[in-house]
């Protein structure tokens, strides 16, 4: 209905995509656990913004519902759950230990983004068909978000940022998904959103257990075998 709005919506969606990518970089680069969580919240909000923009052009209640669902579960319910589950001192600790230092980590992340663009290049629609502009933005950036989440998962040695990396992967997949397959039934999205919460819950409990056992949540330390003293 709104052919005139399409370029502006597309540009705003591109902006959301750019910031989405930036927040994924932020999750790779930041040192604090709390900063990592904040970047994740920002990323989820941008994902929701993209869903709203996609749902506005040919008005689709389904995409708007996806956006609302994302806002509720990922930017409000999930941080609240994590705050409740994981002890406060994890958030107040300043430094996260990483397997790779941050400048090289950023460069690797950059390589991953380039790779994502090259990988998705053959599948991008070329013409000016309806929604082609959205797919051109969302597919590569979503793929890049997925790869960066996987990378965060791989290099962090702390349980909570690893969990956030996993959730960022899910964010990336969603970001690509809303543009590529906007017709996905709502029940699938609901199931995924619920899954995310269960995942966060389980990993939160796990983190808590690790913390009780070893006195810290640094997963890196678990690499060394520790024998129980003989009683």
């Amino acid at each position, binding site marked *: 209905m709104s052919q005139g709005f399409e*370029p*502006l919506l597309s*540009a*705003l969606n*591109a*902006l959301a*995509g*750019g*910031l989405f*990518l*930036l927040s994924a*970089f932020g999750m790779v*680069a930041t040192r604090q656990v709390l900063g990592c969580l904040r970047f994740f919240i920002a990323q989820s909000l941008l994902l929701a913004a993209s869903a709203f923009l996609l749902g506005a052009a040919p008005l689709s209640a389904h995409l708007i519902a996806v956006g609302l669902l994302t806002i509720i579960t990922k930017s409000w319910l999930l941080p609240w759950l994590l705050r409740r589950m994981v002890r406060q001192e994890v958030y107040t600790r300043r430094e996260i230990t990483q397997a790779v230092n*941050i*400048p090289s980590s*950023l*460069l690797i*992340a*950059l390589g991953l*983004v*380039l790779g994502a*663009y090259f990988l998705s*290049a053959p599948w991008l629609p070329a013409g000016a068909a309806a929604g082609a502009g959205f797919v*051109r*933005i969302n597919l*590569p950036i979503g793929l890049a978000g997925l790869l960066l989440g996987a990378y965060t998962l791989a290099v962090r040695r702390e349980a909570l940022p690893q969990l956030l990396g996993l959730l960022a992967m899910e964010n990336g997949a969603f970001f690509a998904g809303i543009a590529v397959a906007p017709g996905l039934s709502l029940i699938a999205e609901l199931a995924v959103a619920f899954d995310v919460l269960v995942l966060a819950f389980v990993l939160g409990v796990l983190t808590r257990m690790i913390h009780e056992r070893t006195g810290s949540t640094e997963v890196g330390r678990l690499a060394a075998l520790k024998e129980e003293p003989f009683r």
Partner: protein
Amino acid sequence: MTTRILYNLLQVAVVMTFAPLMAGVLAKLKEMVQSRRGPSVFQPYRDLWKLFHKDEVIPEESSWIFRVTPYIVFVTPIFVTLLIPVLTSYPLFFAFMGDMLGVGFVLALGGFFAALAAVDTANPYGPMGASRTRMVSFLAEPVFMIVFFTVSFVAGSTIPYIVQQSWVTPLANFFEPAHVLLLLAFFMLITAETGRIPVDNPSGHFELAMIDESKGLEYSGQGAALMKWGGWMKFFVLVCIYLNVLVTPWGLAGGQAAGEVFLAIPLVLLKILAFVLVLVVIESSLAKLRLFRISEFLGAAFVTAVAAMIAQLFAL
């Protein structure tokens, strides 16, 4: 023809006149945020007046470099002013003398001589600050290059006057991800190049922690005045490039009439005031980074710039 030369010289006059005022306003606003009274906004002018009327002391061991450097530091921003849009949106007489790469080189020349002069004195703090400045600026260099390449790729030109038109001609272009990411990267670059807060504390007086300030420690009298004035002008010029070329190319004079050009002066100053307000908020809410964290800060700027470039290249 003659009017274009005159306007070009007017730009230089504007930069020379208002650069200290901008520094004064920035200092005053910062003091007000910290709920102190602070010096008057015209204090930088008084400082310059005082310094120009004082005797100059020159270290015995220093060579000609030490004496020449204040003039180079003072003159390089003036040269840059000839190349960039300060007041008008159409190219002036000297606009095609050099492009944005030229701007970068000319500004780097001033920094290079300032670093040499700092090493030239036997003061132990000088070389320390000089090497730190070099570290910061060689990390900032790739960011500048990527920003420059992306911007000129989009505009199809490297002349700042032509570049500024391409981002806003359809207004939707303003929201392109490449543009927004570039704005962020260039902002981080400005803070690094002019020694503002996340990278360096301009109002710190502790020599061991100094980065940018320690280069001028040995200067007194006229030399100190020229170094200070040059530093303010460099800051003013960089902010002008940022605002007039990248962020808000509005409010510049479009016609040849003298009234229009003079009307552009308060408009440009207003834009700079808005920028200074943002800067004050940042400077008052962030702490200075540890020295070896600067590489992370500039690494983030580099990644932002490259992400902008990728987004631009693949969006076509």
